[in-house]
Protein backbone atom coordinates (compact mmCIF):
# COMPACT_ATOMS: atom_id res chain seq x y z
CA UNK A 1 0.00 0.00 0.00
CA UNK A 2 1.35 3.37 -0.99
CA UNK A 3 0.30 4.87 2.32
CA UNK A 4 2.83 2.84 4.28
CA UNK A 5 5.65 3.94 2.01
CA UNK A 6 4.97 7.60 2.52
CA UNK A 7 6.50 9.36 5.49
CA UNK A 8 4.08 12.23 5.36
CA UNK A 9 2.61 15.20 3.62
CA UNK A 10 3.44 18.88 3.51
CA UNK A 11 0.78 21.45 2.69
CA UNK A 12 1.89 24.79 1.30
CA UNK A 13 -0.67 27.47 2.08
CA UNK A 14 -0.62 30.92 0.53
CA UNK A 15 -2.69 33.59 2.27
CA UNK A 16 -3.39 37.31 2.06
CA UNK A 17 -0.90 37.93 4.86
CA UNK A 18 1.83 35.32 4.52
CA UNK A 19 2.63 31.67 3.84
CA UNK A 20 2.18 28.69 6.13
CA UNK A 21 3.54 25.16 5.97
CA UNK A 22 1.46 22.37 7.49
CA UNK A 23 3.04 18.94 7.96
CA UNK A 24 1.83 15.55 9.13
CA UNK A 25 2.82 11.92 8.96
CA UNK A 26 1.12 9.46 6.66
CA UNK A 27 -1.88 9.12 8.92
CA UNK A 28 -2.62 12.82 8.43
CA UNK A 29 -4.28 13.20 11.79
CA UNK A 30 -1.91 15.43 13.74
CA UNK A 31 -0.54 18.53 12.10
CA UNK A 32 2.33 20.87 12.77
CA UNK A 33 1.83 24.45 11.61
CA UNK A 34 4.80 26.69 10.80
CA UNK A 35 4.72 30.28 9.68
CA UNK A 36 3.86 32.90 8.83
CA UNK A 37 6.60 33.17 6.27
CA UNK A 38 6.78 36.55 4.49
CA UNK A 39 4.43 37.96 7.11
CA UNK A 40 2.20 40.73 5.87
CA UNK A 41 2.70 39.95 2.16
CA UNK A 42 0.16 38.38 -0.14
CA UNK A 43 1.35 34.92 -1.08
CA UNK A 44 -0.55 33.99 -4.18
CA UNK A 45 0.98 30.57 -4.66
CA UNK A 46 3.69 28.18 -3.51
CA UNK A 47 4.57 24.96 -5.25
CA UNK A 48 7.29 22.36 -4.91
CA UNK A 49 9.27 20.60 -7.59
CA UNK A 50 8.01 17.09 -8.35
CA UNK A 51 11.60 15.87 -8.74
CA UNK A 52 13.04 17.67 -5.70
CA UNK A 53 10.35 18.30 -3.08
CA UNK A 54 12.72 20.44 -1.04
CA UNK A 55 12.81 22.95 -3.89
CA UNK A 56 9.78 25.19 -3.46
CA UNK A 57 8.91 28.39 -5.27
CA UNK A 58 6.70 31.13 -3.87
CA UNK A 59 5.04 34.21 -5.31
CA UNK A 60 5.19 37.07 -2.81
CA UNK A 61 3.37 40.24 -3.77
CA UNK A 62 2.24 43.53 -2.31
CA UNK A 63 0.25 46.54 -3.42
CA UNK A 64 3.04 48.65 -1.92
CA UNK A 65 6.18 46.87 -3.06
CA UNK A 66 5.18 44.90 -6.13
CA UNK A 67 6.29 41.39 -6.93
CA UNK A 68 9.01 39.41 -5.23
CA UNK A 69 9.86 35.77 -5.81
CA UNK A 70 11.16 33.38 -3.18
CA UNK A 71 12.82 30.00 -3.38
CA UNK A 72 13.47 27.37 -0.75
CA UNK A 73 15.91 24.50 -1.04
CA UNK A 74 15.09 22.87 2.28
CA UNK A 75 11.40 22.19 2.07
CA UNK A 76 10.25 25.61 3.19
CA UNK A 77 12.34 26.04 6.33
CA UNK A 78 14.44 28.85 4.86
CA UNK A 79 13.94 31.04 1.82
CA UNK A 80 15.94 33.27 -0.47
CA UNK A 81 14.69 35.97 -2.81
CA UNK A 82 15.26 35.25 -6.49
CA UNK A 83 14.55 37.16 -9.68
CA UNK A 84 11.43 39.30 -9.84
CA UNK A 85 11.72 40.98 -13.23
CA UNK A 86 8.91 40.01 -15.59
CA UNK A 87 9.34 41.96 -18.81
CA UNK A 88 6.98 41.19 -21.67
CA UNK A 89 8.64 40.14 -24.88
CA UNK A 90 8.73 42.98 -27.42
CA UNK A 91 6.03 45.64 -27.51
CA UNK A 92 3.31 44.35 -25.18
CA UNK A 93 0.33 45.71 -27.13
CA UNK A 94 -3.17 45.96 -25.70
CA UNK A 95 -5.99 43.82 -24.38
CA UNK A 96 -9.56 44.81 -23.54
CA UNK A 97 -10.21 46.76 -20.39
CA UNK A 98 -13.36 46.29 -18.31
CA UNK A 99 -15.17 48.92 -20.37
CA UNK A 100 -14.18 47.34 -23.67
CA UNK A 101 -11.48 49.87 -24.55
CA UNK A 102 -7.95 48.88 -25.46
CA UNK A 103 -5.63 48.78 -22.45
CA UNK A 104 -1.86 48.26 -22.49
CA UNK A 105 -0.47 45.06 -21.05
CA UNK A 106 1.01 45.78 -17.61
CA UNK A 107 2.67 43.34 -15.26
CA UNK A 108 0.95 43.20 -11.88
CA UNK A 109 1.71 39.93 -10.09
CA UNK A 110 2.41 36.23 -10.35
CA UNK A 111 -0.68 34.11 -9.75
CA UNK A 112 0.57 30.58 -10.28
CA UNK A 113 3.86 28.69 -10.34
CA UNK A 114 4.29 25.35 -12.05
CA UNK A 115 7.66 23.62 -11.57
CA UNK A 116 8.90 21.35 -14.33
CA UNK A 117 8.16 17.65 -14.07
CA UNK A 118 11.82 16.83 -14.77
CA UNK A 119 14.10 19.70 -13.74
CA UNK A 120 13.96 21.45 -10.35
CA UNK A 121 15.52 24.61 -11.80
CA UNK A 122 12.85 25.02 -14.46
CA UNK A 123 9.57 26.61 -13.46
CA UNK A 124 6.71 28.35 -15.24
CA UNK A 125 4.87 31.41 -13.92
CA UNK A 126 1.38 32.53 -14.85
CA UNK A 127 1.04 36.24 -14.41
CA UNK A 128 -1.38 39.18 -14.49
CA UNK A 129 -1.76 40.78 -17.04
CA UNK A 130 -2.03 37.36 -18.56
CA UNK A 131 1.16 35.86 -19.91
CA UNK A 132 3.31 32.81 -19.39
CA UNK A 133 6.90 33.13 -18.18
CA UNK A 134 9.62 30.53 -17.74
CA UNK A 135 12.80 30.31 -15.71
CA UNK A 136 15.47 27.68 -16.30
CA UNK A 137 17.85 28.82 -13.57
CA UNK A 138 15.87 28.30 -10.42
CA UNK A 139 13.88 31.50 -10.67
CA UNK A 140 16.78 33.93 -11.07
CA UNK A 141 15.77 35.04 -14.56
CA UNK A 142 12.37 34.97 -16.21
CA UNK A 143 11.55 35.12 -19.90
CA UNK A 144 8.16 35.26 -21.53
CA UNK A 145 6.91 32.35 -23.58
CA UNK A 146 5.73 34.85 -26.18
CA UNK A 147 3.76 32.64 -28.55
CA UNK A 148 0.78 32.60 -26.23
CA UNK A 149 0.07 36.34 -26.29
CA UNK A 150 1.11 36.67 -29.90
CA UNK A 151 -1.10 34.07 -31.50
CA UNK A 152 -3.67 36.68 -32.39
CA UNK A 153 -6.54 36.78 -29.94
CA UNK A 154 -4.72 38.76 -27.22
CA UNK A 155 -6.45 42.07 -28.04
CA UNK A 156 -9.79 40.36 -27.27
CA UNK A 157 -8.82 39.12 -23.81
CA UNK A 158 -10.34 40.95 -20.89
CA UNK A 159 -9.96 40.90 -17.11
CA UNK A 160 -12.26 39.09 -14.76
CA UNK A 161 -13.17 40.65 -11.45
CA UNK A 162 -9.86 39.52 -9.99
CA UNK A 163 -7.79 40.84 -12.87
CA UNK A 164 -6.64 39.37 -16.17
CA UNK A 165 -4.69 36.48 -14.79
CA UNK A 166 -3.09 33.35 -16.16
CA UNK A 167 -3.95 31.09 -13.24
CA UNK A 168 -3.68 27.51 -14.46
CA UNK A 169 -0.66 25.75 -15.97
CA UNK A 170 -0.81 22.01 -16.63
CA UNK A 171 2.19 20.10 -17.95
CA UNK A 172 1.43 16.89 -19.83
CA UNK A 173 3.44 14.08 -18.19
CA UNK A 174 3.22 11.96 -21.36
CA UNK A 175 4.21 14.64 -23.83
CA UNK A 176 6.89 17.17 -22.93
CA UNK A 177 5.81 19.41 -25.80
CA UNK A 178 2.21 19.72 -24.65
CA UNK A 179 0.98 22.19 -22.06
CA UNK A 180 -2.38 23.66 -21.12
CA UNK A 181 -3.03 27.06 -19.59
CA UNK A 182 -6.15 29.00 -18.62
CA UNK A 183 -6.83 32.72 -18.37
CA UNK A 184 -9.64 34.73 -16.82
CA UNK A 185 -11.27 35.93 -18.95
CA UNK A 186 -9.94 34.54 -22.18
CA UNK A 187 -10.31 30.78 -21.81
CA UNK A 188 -8.13 27.71 -22.18
CA UNK A 189 -5.19 27.30 -24.55
CA UNK A 190 -2.92 24.44 -25.58
CA UNK A 191 0.50 24.17 -27.08
CA UNK A 192 1.76 21.01 -28.79
CA UNK A 193 5.22 22.31 -29.62
CA UNK A 194 6.67 23.32 -26.27
CA UNK A 195 5.14 26.79 -26.21
CA UNK A 196 6.08 28.10 -29.65
CA UNK A 197 2.51 28.15 -30.90
CA UNK A 198 -0.81 28.00 -29.05
CA UNK A 199 -4.43 27.44 -29.94
CA UNK A 200 -7.58 28.34 -28.01
CA UNK A 201 -9.39 25.20 -26.84
CA UNK A 202 -12.80 26.55 -25.89
CA UNK A 203 -15.15 24.73 -28.26
CA UNK A 204 -18.21 23.57 -26.38
CA UNK A 205 -18.03 26.29 -23.74
CA UNK A 206 -21.14 28.45 -23.47
CA UNK A 207 -20.88 31.73 -21.57
CA UNK A 208 -24.01 33.83 -21.67
CA UNK A 209 -22.21 36.80 -20.08
CA UNK A 210 -20.21 37.52 -23.25
CA UNK A 211 -21.65 38.91 -26.51
CA UNK A 212 -21.12 35.66 -28.41
CA UNK A 213 -21.66 32.87 -25.88
CA UNK A 214 -19.68 30.41 -28.01
CA UNK A 215 -16.83 32.73 -28.94
CA UNK A 216 -13.38 31.31 -29.52
CA UNK A 217 -12.02 33.39 -26.63
CA UNK A 218 -13.50 35.44 -23.79
CA UNK A 219 -14.65 32.68 -21.44
CA UNK A 220 -13.98 33.03 -17.74
CA UNK A 221 -12.34 29.69 -16.99
CA UNK A 222 -11.71 29.42 -13.26
CA UNK A 223 -9.68 26.23 -13.02
CA UNK A 224 -8.67 23.13 -14.95
CA UNK A 225 -7.51 19.81 -13.50
CA UNK A 226 -6.00 16.68 -15.01
CA UNK A 227 -5.16 13.21 -13.77
CA UNK A 228 -1.60 12.37 -14.83
CA UNK A 229 -2.58 8.93 -16.12
CA UNK A 230 -5.09 10.46 -18.56
CA UNK A 231 -3.52 13.61 -19.93
CA UNK A 232 -6.09 13.93 -22.71
CA UNK A 233 -8.92 14.27 -20.21
CA UNK A 234 -9.36 17.62 -18.52
CA UNK A 235 -11.96 18.84 -16.05
CA UNK A 236 -12.90 22.51 -15.88
CA UNK A 237 -14.70 24.69 -13.39
CA UNK A 238 -15.85 27.61 -15.49
CA UNK A 239 -17.41 30.78 -14.08
CA UNK A 240 -20.64 28.84 -14.40
CA UNK A 241 -20.60 25.19 -15.57
CA UNK A 242 -18.41 22.20 -14.84
CA UNK A 243 -16.99 20.80 -18.07
CA UNK A 244 -14.86 17.93 -19.31
CA UNK A 245 -12.95 17.08 -22.44
CA UNK A 246 -11.52 13.74 -23.52
CA UNK A 247 -9.66 14.97 -26.56
CA UNK A 248 -7.21 17.44 -25.03
CA UNK A 249 -9.62 20.33 -25.21
CA UNK A 250 -10.76 20.05 -28.81
CA UNK A 251 -14.34 19.63 -27.57
CA UNK A 252 -15.81 20.26 -24.12
CA UNK A 253 -19.08 18.91 -22.73
CA UNK A 254 -20.93 20.01 -19.64
CA UNK A 255 -20.99 17.60 -16.71
CA UNK A 256 -22.63 19.79 -14.08
CA UNK A 257 -25.42 17.21 -13.72
CA UNK A 258 -27.18 17.39 -10.37
CA UNK A 259 -24.92 20.00 -8.75
CA UNK A 260 -27.04 22.46 -6.75
CA UNK A 261 -25.14 25.31 -8.40
CA UNK A 262 -22.42 24.94 -10.98
CA UNK A 263 -20.69 28.20 -10.16
CA UNK A 264 -17.40 27.76 -8.32
CA UNK A 265 -13.67 28.14 -8.48
CA UNK A 266 -11.81 24.94 -7.60
CA UNK A 267 -11.80 21.54 -9.24
CA UNK A 268 -9.49 18.61 -8.66
CA UNK A 269 -9.08 14.92 -9.45
CA UNK A 270 -8.59 12.00 -7.04
CA UNK A 271 -4.98 10.80 -7.09
CA UNK A 272 -5.82 7.16 -7.87
CA UNK A 273 -9.24 7.32 -9.51
CA UNK A 274 -9.15 9.38 -12.70
CA UNK A 275 -12.94 9.59 -12.90
CA UNK A 276 -13.38 10.86 -9.33
CA UNK A 277 -13.48 14.63 -9.21
CA UNK A 278 -14.19 17.30 -6.61
CA UNK A 279 -15.74 20.77 -6.74
CA UNK A 280 -16.98 23.24 -4.13
CA UNK A 281 -20.21 24.79 -5.42
CA UNK A 282 -20.57 28.50 -4.74
CA UNK A 283 -23.97 30.18 -4.82
CA UNK A 284 -23.44 32.58 -7.71
CA UNK A 285 -21.16 35.08 -9.39
CA UNK A 286 -22.67 37.82 -7.27
CA UNK A 287 -22.74 35.88 -4.00
CA UNK A 288 -19.39 34.19 -3.50
CA UNK A 289 -20.30 31.86 -0.67
CA UNK A 290 -21.84 28.40 -0.29
CA UNK A 291 -25.55 27.79 -0.74
CA UNK A 292 -27.65 28.21 2.40
CA UNK A 293 -24.59 28.70 4.61
CA UNK A 294 -23.58 25.05 4.19
CA UNK A 295 -20.02 24.30 3.13
CA UNK A 296 -20.17 21.23 0.89
CA UNK A 297 -17.65 19.55 -1.30
CA UNK A 298 -19.28 17.66 -4.14
CA UNK A 299 -17.68 14.49 -5.47
CA UNK A 300 -18.42 12.66 -8.67
CA UNK A 301 -17.12 9.14 -9.11
CA UNK A 302 -18.33 9.04 -12.68
CA UNK A 303 -16.32 11.88 -14.16
CA UNK A 304 -19.20 14.28 -13.76
CA UNK A 305 -22.98 14.29 -14.24
CA UNK A 306 -23.68 12.45 -10.96
CA UNK A 307 -22.52 14.24 -7.83
CA UNK A 308 -22.75 13.53 -4.09
CA UNK A 309 -22.39 16.10 -1.31
CA UNK A 310 -19.60 15.55 1.21
CA UNK A 311 -20.45 17.28 4.45
CA UNK A 312 -19.15 15.27 7.40
CA UNK A 313 -16.93 17.59 9.41
CA UNK A 314 -17.74 20.69 7.38
CA UNK A 315 -19.88 23.52 8.78
CA UNK A 316 -23.51 23.10 7.79
CA UNK A 317 -24.87 26.39 8.98
CA UNK A 318 -23.81 30.05 8.99
CA UNK A 319 -20.84 29.46 6.70
CA UNK A 320 -20.21 32.22 4.18
CA UNK A 321 -16.62 31.73 3.06
CA UNK A 322 -15.31 31.30 -0.46
CA UNK A 323 -12.82 28.77 -1.82
CA UNK A 324 -10.55 30.43 -4.38
CA UNK A 325 -9.36 28.81 -7.60
CA UNK A 326 -5.92 27.63 -6.47
CA UNK A 327 -7.03 26.56 -3.00
CA UNK A 328 -7.68 22.83 -3.45
CA UNK A 329 -5.18 19.99 -3.79
CA UNK A 330 -4.87 16.23 -3.38
CA UNK A 331 -2.06 14.09 -2.02
CA UNK A 332 -1.01 10.75 -3.50
CA UNK A 333 -1.30 8.63 -0.38
CA UNK A 334 -3.77 5.80 -0.04
CA UNK A 335 -6.46 6.77 0.78
CA UNK A 336 -6.22 9.93 -1.23
CA UNK A 337 -6.05 13.09 0.87
CA UNK A 338 -8.07 16.10 -0.24
CA UNK A 339 -7.40 19.61 1.06
CA UNK A 340 -8.88 23.03 0.57
CA UNK A 341 -8.57 26.48 2.12
CA UNK A 342 -11.17 29.19 2.58
CA UNK A 343 -11.29 32.94 2.62
CA UNK A 344 -12.23 32.58 6.29
CA UNK A 345 -8.79 31.16 7.05
CA UNK A 346 -9.67 27.51 7.51
CA UNK A 347 -7.73 24.70 5.87
CA UNK A 348 -9.83 21.55 5.73
CA UNK A 349 -8.35 18.09 5.21
CA UNK A 350 -9.82 14.72 4.41
CA UNK A 351 -7.64 11.63 4.76
CA UNK A 352 -10.31 9.39 3.26
CA UNK A 353 -10.94 10.85 -0.18
CA UNK A 354 -13.56 13.28 1.05
CA UNK A 355 -15.76 11.07 3.20
CA UNK A 356 -14.86 13.00 6.36
CA UNK A 357 -13.22 16.36 6.98
CA UNK A 358 -11.33 18.12 9.73
CA UNK A 359 -10.05 21.66 10.00
CA UNK A 360 -6.25 21.60 10.35
CA UNK A 361 -6.30 25.30 11.18
CA UNK A 362 -9.23 27.65 11.52
CA UNK A 363 -7.87 31.15 11.86
CA UNK A 364 -5.30 31.86 9.18
CA UNK A 365 -5.59 34.95 7.01
CA UNK A 366 -7.77 34.46 3.94
CA UNK A 367 -6.40 31.46 2.04
CA UNK A 368 -5.47 32.07 -1.58
CA UNK A 369 -3.77 28.80 -2.50
CA UNK A 370 -3.21 25.27 -1.24
CA UNK A 371 -0.70 22.77 -2.60
CA UNK A 372 0.26 19.39 -1.18
CA UNK A 373 3.48 17.46 -1.36
CA UNK A 374 3.49 13.73 -0.64
CA UNK A 375 6.83 13.01 1.00
CA UNK A 376 8.72 9.70 0.99
Amino acid sequence: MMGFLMSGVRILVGTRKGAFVLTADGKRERWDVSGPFFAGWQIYHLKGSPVDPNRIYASQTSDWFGQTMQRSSDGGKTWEPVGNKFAYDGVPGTHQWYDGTAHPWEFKRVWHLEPSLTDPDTVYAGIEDAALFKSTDGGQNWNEVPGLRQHGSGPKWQPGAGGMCLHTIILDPANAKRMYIAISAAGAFRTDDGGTTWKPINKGLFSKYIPDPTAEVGHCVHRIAMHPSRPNTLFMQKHWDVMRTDDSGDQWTEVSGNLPTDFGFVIDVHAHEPETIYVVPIKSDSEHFPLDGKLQVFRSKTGGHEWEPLTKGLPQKDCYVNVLRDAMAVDSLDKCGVYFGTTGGQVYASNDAGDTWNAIVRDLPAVVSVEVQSLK
Partner: protein
Amino acid sequence: MIRVVLPQHLRTLANVGSGTDEVTIDVSGPPTQRALIDAIEARYPMLRGTIRDYATDRRRAFLRFFACEEDISHELPDSLLPAPVVSGAEPFLIVGALAGG
Protein backbone atom coordinates in the same frame (compact mmCIF):
# COMPACT_ATOMS: atom_id res chain seq x y z
CA MET B 1 27.09 58.39 3.39
CA ILE B 2 23.37 58.90 3.08
CA ARG B 3 21.08 57.59 5.80
CA VAL B 4 18.04 55.82 4.41
CA VAL B 5 15.02 54.72 6.43
CA LEU B 6 13.40 51.70 4.83
CA PRO B 7 9.88 50.49 5.59
CA GLN B 8 9.67 47.34 7.68
CA HIS B 9 8.83 44.97 4.83
CA LEU B 10 11.80 46.12 2.78
CA ARG B 11 14.14 45.85 5.77
CA THR B 12 12.98 42.27 6.21
CA LEU B 13 13.34 41.51 2.52
CA ALA B 14 16.84 43.01 2.47
CA ASN B 15 17.73 41.17 5.68
CA VAL B 16 19.22 44.29 7.26
CA GLY B 17 18.38 43.23 10.80
CA SER B 18 15.82 44.43 13.26
CA GLY B 19 18.03 46.65 15.42
CA THR B 20 17.64 49.72 13.26
CA ASP B 21 15.36 51.09 10.62
CA GLU B 22 18.24 52.89 8.91
CA VAL B 23 20.82 51.79 6.41
CA THR B 24 23.69 53.91 5.14
CA ILE B 25 24.28 54.17 1.43
CA ASP B 26 27.30 55.50 -0.40
CA VAL B 27 26.34 57.37 -3.58
CA SER B 28 29.01 58.01 -6.16
CA GLY B 29 28.57 60.99 -8.47
CA PRO B 30 25.91 63.68 -8.10
CA PRO B 31 23.64 62.78 -5.16
CA THR B 32 20.30 62.67 -6.92
CA GLN B 33 17.18 60.74 -6.03
CA ARG B 34 17.81 58.41 -8.96
CA ALA B 35 21.45 57.83 -7.95
CA LEU B 36 20.39 57.04 -4.40
CA ILE B 37 17.79 54.48 -5.44
CA ASP B 38 20.31 52.99 -7.89
CA ALA B 39 22.79 52.66 -5.02
CA ILE B 40 20.19 51.09 -2.71
CA GLU B 41 19.35 48.52 -5.39
CA ALA B 42 23.02 47.81 -6.07
CA ARG B 43 23.67 47.10 -2.41
CA TYR B 44 20.43 45.21 -1.90
CA PRO B 45 19.57 43.54 -5.24
CA MET B 46 16.49 41.92 -3.74
CA LEU B 47 14.94 45.39 -3.51
CA ARG B 48 14.99 45.90 -7.27
CA GLY B 49 11.47 46.43 -8.47
CA THR B 50 10.10 47.05 -4.98
CA ILE B 51 10.73 50.82 -4.80
CA ARG B 52 10.54 51.60 -8.53
CA ASP B 53 8.50 49.71 -11.07
CA TYR B 54 10.69 47.69 -13.41
CA ALA B 55 8.76 48.61 -16.53
CA THR B 56 8.36 52.35 -15.98
CA ASP B 57 11.25 53.09 -13.61
CA ARG B 58 8.79 55.24 -11.65
CA ARG B 59 8.31 55.27 -7.89
CA ARG B 60 5.63 52.83 -6.85
CA ALA B 61 2.31 54.50 -6.26
CA PHE B 62 1.98 53.46 -2.62
CA LEU B 63 5.45 54.71 -1.65
CA ARG B 64 6.56 58.24 -0.85
CA PHE B 65 9.97 59.84 -0.31
CA PHE B 66 10.29 62.21 2.64
CA ALA B 67 13.25 64.28 3.78
CA CYS B 68 13.75 67.29 6.05
CA GLU B 69 10.06 67.23 6.92
CA GLU B 70 9.11 67.62 3.27
CA ASP B 71 7.46 65.26 0.80
CA ILE B 72 9.99 65.15 -2.04
CA SER B 73 8.27 62.31 -3.89
CA HIS B 74 7.46 64.47 -6.87
CA GLU B 75 10.91 65.98 -7.31
CA LEU B 76 12.43 65.03 -10.63
CA PRO B 77 14.55 61.88 -10.35
CA ASP B 78 17.67 63.76 -11.37
CA SER B 79 17.23 66.67 -8.98
CA LEU B 80 19.79 66.87 -6.20
CA LEU B 81 18.85 65.59 -2.76
CA PRO B 82 18.58 68.17 0.04
CA ALA B 83 21.97 69.14 1.48
CA PRO B 84 21.19 67.83 5.01
CA VAL B 85 20.43 64.41 3.48
CA VAL B 86 23.67 64.45 1.51
CA SER B 87 25.66 65.39 4.60
CA GLY B 88 24.02 62.69 6.71
CA ALA B 89 22.42 65.17 9.10
CA GLU B 90 18.93 64.10 8.00
CA PRO B 91 17.71 60.74 6.73
CA PHE B 92 15.96 60.00 3.44
CA LEU B 93 12.74 58.21 4.30
CA ILE B 94 11.00 55.69 2.06
CA VAL B 95 7.48 55.48 3.45
CA GLY B 96 4.67 53.09 2.67
CA ALA B 97 1.18 54.53 2.37
CA LEU B 98 -1.13 54.02 5.31
CA ALA B 99 -3.65 51.98 3.39
CA GLY B 100 -5.10 48.56 3.13
CA GLY B 101 -6.30 45.99 5.62
